[in-house]
């Protein structure tokens, strides 16, 4: 057995603990810097993607409407990645986190650009865009936003052609403010804008499907095509 009370050991343990705290603090700071540079890269990529989408739009102006390109825009992969990251980041760090807010602003811009691209493409081909603009808030003033989010996520997973663009109503981004004034939106969240018409309050999946009849046709065609191929 060791000495009953060893002052030196208490002091050594204190400094080891302090040292561990210091190392963790420095490591946390290092990781934070890395994270900032990652975010900066993502934001640069978003800017690049927006530029690419401009070019894509110009190119698609000459493309045949039979081409599938218009339905799967260049930005969709980038958007899907960001959606996942943002949802997780909001959950883990809170909606007020500076990194979350910065990324969310870029994400909103990217979505707005994708929405415009999709709309122009469908106008050109005289189609109806299979898109939903979804306005939410996570400041505690929207009880049904979580529920609405689950419904829309599930629909996005089931309908490849459906584009859901989620905007934080209170983000304070000029693009969102413009969308709010174009569609004359009141703060009665959640809000869905389908075919330029706003719908207030929670909507079930069935109600949304009823508002976009083309959705079921596309889905049925897709299912039928898959079944035929398998045969």
């Amino acid at each position, binding site marked *: 057995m*060791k000495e*009953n*009370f060893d002052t030196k050991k208490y002091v050594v*343990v204190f400094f080891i603990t302090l040292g*561990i705290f210091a190392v*963790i603090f420095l490591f946390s700071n290092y990781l934070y810097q890395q994270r900032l540079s990652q975010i900066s890269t993502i934001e640069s990529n978003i800017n690049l993607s927006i530029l690419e989408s401009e070019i894509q739009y110009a190119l698609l102006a000459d493309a045949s409407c039979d081409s599938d390109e218009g339905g799967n825009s260049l930005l969709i992969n980038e958007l899907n990645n960001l959606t996942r990251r943002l949802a997780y980041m909001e959950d883990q*760090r809170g909606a007020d986190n500076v990194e979350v807010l910065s990324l969310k602003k870029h994400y909103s811009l990217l979505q707005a650009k994708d929405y415009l691209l999709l709309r122009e493409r469908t106008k050109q081909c005289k189609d109806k865009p299979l898109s939903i603009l979804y306005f939410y808030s996570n400041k505690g003033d929207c009880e049904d936003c979580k529920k609405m989010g*689950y419904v829309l996520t599930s629909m996005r997973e089931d309908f490849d052609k459906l584009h859901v663009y989620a905007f934080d109503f209170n983000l304070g981004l000029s693009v969102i403010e413009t969308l709010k004034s174009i569609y004359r939106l009141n703060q009665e969240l959640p809000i869905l804008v389908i075919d330029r018409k706003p719908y207030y309050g929670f909507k079930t999946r069935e109600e949304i499907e009823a508002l976009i009849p083309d959705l079921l046709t596309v889905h049925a065609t897709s299912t039928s095509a898959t079944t035929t191929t398998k045969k």
Partner: protein
Amino acid sequence: MPQFAQENCFTQGLFQTIIQMSWHLPQLMDTFFDIPVLVLLFLTLYFEVFILLTYFEDRKEFARTDPKKRMPGQCPSVTVIVPAWNEGKTIVGTVESLLSLNYPKDKLKIFIVDDGSTDDTLAFAKQFEGHPQVKIYANEKNSGKYVAMNLGIKMATTDLVGCLDADSFVDADALMHIIPYFDDVAVMAVTPSVQIYTPVSLLQKIQSVEYMIGAFTRKIFSRINGLYVTPGPFSIYRTSIFQTIGGFVHGYGTEDMEMALRMQANRLRIENAHDALVYTVSPATPRALYNQRVRWVSGFLKNAFFQYRHMFFSRSHGNLGMLTMPFAFFSIFIALFFSAMYVKNLANLAYEQVIKYSALGFNLNFSWPTFDWFSLNIGFQRLVVYMLFFATVFLIIMGTRMILQRYVLTRNMLYFILLYGLIAPFWLVRSLYNLVSAKEARWR
């Protein structure tokens, strides 16, 4: 009447809640200047560093070895008292395990003391009547374990006296592992390593992991002379100490804890023989476990505050006064804090599922949650908790390794990690209530 993990049930509660918190840290901990949380994390880390450093200093002492052979003349005489109250189902096994000890028969006496049992305990005990090593005593009415122990001590004429609760069973080599510690004349008591006897129910499986960690931390505490309980299952004492400091007292229902604290107060050394294995029947139902733990934790708090408060932060009482006793007390609050956060996060998770269900209905499509390094919280406090998590997992693994003699990951560890933090707060809160509402306070 097993009383083993009193001194560890606080720290185990703490360790497992740390694990849970590393998965579900609340957002309030993301504020760096949240001083109380920082202090709490610092204290917890300090304690873990202290015990890990002690382990690495004395690593060789934690190995399990075969008992050294001794000539009969080198074996001190021992009396093992078996206090029993309504233990008819287990007493025969308890006594038979004692009779099977690898120890010279003429040096080992067994005193069965029936403490006014109302079942067939005495009838079963009488099976051993006439056995040259066994004597049977019976109290007419139930007076408490400490009375039964004192009766046995009074009748004992051996060098050493021990106790074995009548629902516990000893490994054949247990006594031979304990005896060498008494070669050091300064050692006055030796505690064994208590494990759960054939854990069957989920609660028992959780306790089996708790007891293994307990065995490891008990060994560490013994290395720094910080033990404050000599558990009922097979703690062995020098008979002479009872003349010096007196026999057992009620000790708020934890006579073994009171005895250890009294020994420490009188600077009588307690050692731990980690390879002396004893198996005890553990509570199988939540109610029985709750009652047992309330008794243990309340017993510790009342003994510590009403009888031995002067030992807290007393340098003259060494590591016991400066580290293990204060931390046992503070860890109750640390464990409650972390458990509250764990429950809060589980409630949030359940709320999310309810919302999801109300939005989509019952959905059979199960998908594993995705993990993205980018989204990992790298806040300072979160990283400290990850650190504590790894230190705690290390303790769990080392505890099981010390007992099972191999590195192993078991399902019981998972049960312990996930569930212990949900049940421990019940007895911790009740015990604190018992402390503040106690009318029998006798402050020194």
